[in-house]
């Protein structure tokens, strides 16, 4: 088990119903992809937020990463939709 701070933005945040949380991750959760699959088992709000898994973007310690990226000793993992700034 490892502990990680999760932060959510935009409609991912709205659908999950909170902006951040701290979770214990099971040993099988190695990559961002594993994390998304794990979160979807936690309830309908996660399922709704992460339904179209391929559009979800992730950042580890405030840097963009692919879904295949190992979580390693991440302090903070962020999940959000494609960005629309500028």
């Amino acid at each position, binding site marked *: 088990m490892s502990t990680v701070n999760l932060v959510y*933005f935009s409609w991912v945040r709205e659908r999950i119903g909170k902006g951040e949380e701290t979770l214990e991750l099971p040993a099988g959760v190695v990559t961002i992809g594993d994390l998304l699959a794990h979160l979807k088992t936690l309830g309908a709000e996660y399922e709704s937020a992460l339904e179209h898994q391929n559009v979800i973007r992730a*950042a580890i310690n405030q*840097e*963009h990463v692919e879904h295949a990226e190992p979580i390693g000793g991440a302090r903070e993992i962020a999940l*959000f939709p494609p*960005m*629309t*700034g*500028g």
Partner: protein
Amino acid sequence: MVAPVTVRIQREDFDLAAEVSALCRGRTNIGAIVTFSGLCRDEAGALGALELEHYPGMAEAEISRICLEAVQRFGLQAATAIHRFGRIEPGQNIVLVVTASPHRQAAFDGANFIMDFLKTSAPFWKKEHRTDGKTGEWVSAKDADDAARDRWSR
């Protein structure tokens, strides 16, 4: 010599002329300054306001990375990027980019590059508040923005 990259994420508006002056200060060999201001459009009266959400910390970090890459890639003398968050109404400023270079094309390309990457990589999200009072929708990312970014890797 001032550090070549200035990045700020702020709720308040910015002052174009003040930012250009600040970027020029102490530099005597600038030949070209390009500024880009991104404004909130009224969408023919349909849009009441945009609400901009951002990822504090990462927004600064990501835009700084983009500006530094532009400085190196185009040989800029300096670059400034300011991105606002919170409620922004039609006609108001959203983002400012300023680049300085001895030569004009580098200044143009640097500002264009920063905006293309800022659009697709800076952690900001826009929600629309419509004048008809309907609950706002989150603005969708555009394929055209990805294409604009990808032309720089050619």
